[in-house]
């Protein structure tokens, strides 16, 4: 682009001011043009464009990544194998937040920009209930047969017509081994003077209250409102008495590392990573009374095009291949829902193949429970009670 320079007769300062103005205007024009193009592109993005792509919104740090942190080996292999371009984004940070973000468009039937999303069980249930998902064409996902039998018929999707587990998450007790040398076997082991004011529980209601309910001998697959509120009162009491310092999400990891927290109701995968990085300073166990298990689920939003849906099914099928599932599990350290992945893991990392965190044994599995599906009314009153206990 030719740019008219200010006349030489001007002082250097004046010239620089003038030329900076010109370039600024040019920049603005450029921005305007770029914005116009983007707007046009987004108007015109129809089915033809989606033919060769699949757009996946996932949680952060939830897929194997190379050391530079720039590419995802299993996803790259998928692209090469099937000739489908995968647009992978870590756009899910929180179930509620994500729901708030896409709900409006789903309601209006406008493209939300993803062909696959991976919300947690209860939120997946909400998506399915509201008709925001599409039924799988099971012929495109033959590997679905590898789904662990325990996960085959959850209450929110009994036939797995709309959802398949991506990873499962166990919740139980985690602790600092120096402060708690004997370990924690039950909720009551938390209340020792050394842990006073240094306990953190998960902000995920179903996990925290679930673990408490189980310790009270309540079956969380059929929990009643009275039983639930009773557990919330118990939590409230422990907060008021200064035992519990926080109700938090993933941030509890930093507090454990810094020593501000010494015992937690937490997710197994996190404690596994922490323990690895800090030479056994931390440990995790499912309490004797039982722990919770939940899953994040592949869903195809109602707004995905036919091509997008087919590509999404191809991708889901790919991640249900035991060898691929093992590769992902070796990185994310969560419970893999794919049968046969353990044998495949033997080839990658024999130590991980024996990990209770990734491949819980039958015995551990029998102590894990899934929180029951809540009705919309229960969901709001129960969440409100839990949030109130957390000070909100």
């Amino acid at each position: 682009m030719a740019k008219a320079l200010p006349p030489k007769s001007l002082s250097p300062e004046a010239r620089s001011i003038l030329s900076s103005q010109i370039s600024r205007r040019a920049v603005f024009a450029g921005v305007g043009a770029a914005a116009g193009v983007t707007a046009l592109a987004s108007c015109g993005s129809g089915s033809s464009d989606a033919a060769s792509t699949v757009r996946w919104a996932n949680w952060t740090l939830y897929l194997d990544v190379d050391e530079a942190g720039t590419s995802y080996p299993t996803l790259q292999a998928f692209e090469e194998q099937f000739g489908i371009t995968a647009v992978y984004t870590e756009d899910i940070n929180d179930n509620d937040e994500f729901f708030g973000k896409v709900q409006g468009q789903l309601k209006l039937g406008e493209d939300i920009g993803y062909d696959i999303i991976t919300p947690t069980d209860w939120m997946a249930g909400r998506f399915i209930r509201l008709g925001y998902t599409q039924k799988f064409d099971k012929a495109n996902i033959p590997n679905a047969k590898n789904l662990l039998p325990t996960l085959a018929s959850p209450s929110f999707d009994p036939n797995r017509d709309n959802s398949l587990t991506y990873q499962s998450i166990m919740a139980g007790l985690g602790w600092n081994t120096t402060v708690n040398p004997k370990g924690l076997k039950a909720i009551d082991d938390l209340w020792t003077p050394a842990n006073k004011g240094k306990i953190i529980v998960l902000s995920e209601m179903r996990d925290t209250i679930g673990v408490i309910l189980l310790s009270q001998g309540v079956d969380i697959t059929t929990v009643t409102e009275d039983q639930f509120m009773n557990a919330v009162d118990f939590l409230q009491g422990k907060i008021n008495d200064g035992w519990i310092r926080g109700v938090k999400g993933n941030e509890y990891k930093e507090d454990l590392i810094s020593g501000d927290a010494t015992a937690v109701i937490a997710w197994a995968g996190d404690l596994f990573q922490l323990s690895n990085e800090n030479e056994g300073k931390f440990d995790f166990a499912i309490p004797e009374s039982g722990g919770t298990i939940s899953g994040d689920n592949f869903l195809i939003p109602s707004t995905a095009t036919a091509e997008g849906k087919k590509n999404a099914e191809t991708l889901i099928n790919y991640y249900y291949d035991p060898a691929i599932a093992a590769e992902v599990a070796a990185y994310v350290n969560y419970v893999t829902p794919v049968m046969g992945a353990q044998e495949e893991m033997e080839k990658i990392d024999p130590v991980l193949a024996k990990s209770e965190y990734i491949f819980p044994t039958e015995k551990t599995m029998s102590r894990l429970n899934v929180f029951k599906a809540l009705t919309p009314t229960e969901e709001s009153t129960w969440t409100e009670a839990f949030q109130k206990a957390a000070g909100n």
Partner: protein
Amino acid sequence: MVKTGISRPGTPYLLLLPGVAFLFTFFLWPIANLAQTSTQTPIAGGDTGEYEQSLRWQNYIDAFLENKEQFGRSFLYAAIATLAALAIAYPLAYAIAFKAGKMKNVLLVLVVAPFFTSFLLRTIAWKQILGEQGFVVPVLRDLHIISPATTLTSSAFAVVAGMTYNFLPFMTLPIYASIDRIDPRTLEASGDLYANGITTFRKVTLPLSMPGVVAGTLLTFIPAAGDYVNAAILGSPQTKMIGNVIESRFFKVVDYPTAAALSFTLMAAILILVTVYIRKAGTEELV
């Protein structure tokens, strides 16, 4: 006479247009929406987050009564943080304006420097400063100021300290601007009239710097009362503020009407407090 564009009668309105359009789109329109949401009720048999308009003004009373505690805490913490910021900022601004000499600009840059990093990062940094691995806790424990079992994070102290720090520049800069404008001859005149240092400060410097103090306290108190980041990162369940409740109602409970009613109540409460304050302080101080 050459007719210039400025003399056209429509020009001032034309110049106002961008500002008005901006305020309409990003302030009036959302506020109207919020007002509309605040009186809604859940649709019978509807799903999570589905509400309909039924002009239920009781929402406001319920929302306030259920969260009195957090409202009270918000104003208390904001007031303490404002006073603490004032106590730190006034001497600082005074020193920069009168005593810094050549260092004036450097010091001003240092006051603003924290703004170069993100608000969140600054708050998280406080978590480390006050944490078990920081230097504050061991020192205080060695001096027997706090007991070995006491932690400083997840406490009201941490929340107020975080707010004081985060809003300090908002207090310092207006006070500095006011003090810097004081004509040194007024101070000399005060001395000539046999006023000692303290009297000069009380009778001359302080009154002349009041516009800065009023502006600074407002700029600190208003955002501090609505803040939720400090309480979320540095606090515990017992130190939650009204901003935390609004966030949780909006995103977690998906109770939009209560969240909206709380936001309006907070706005109204701040507006009333600020009006009373400005009346007391005298509006001319702000000009």
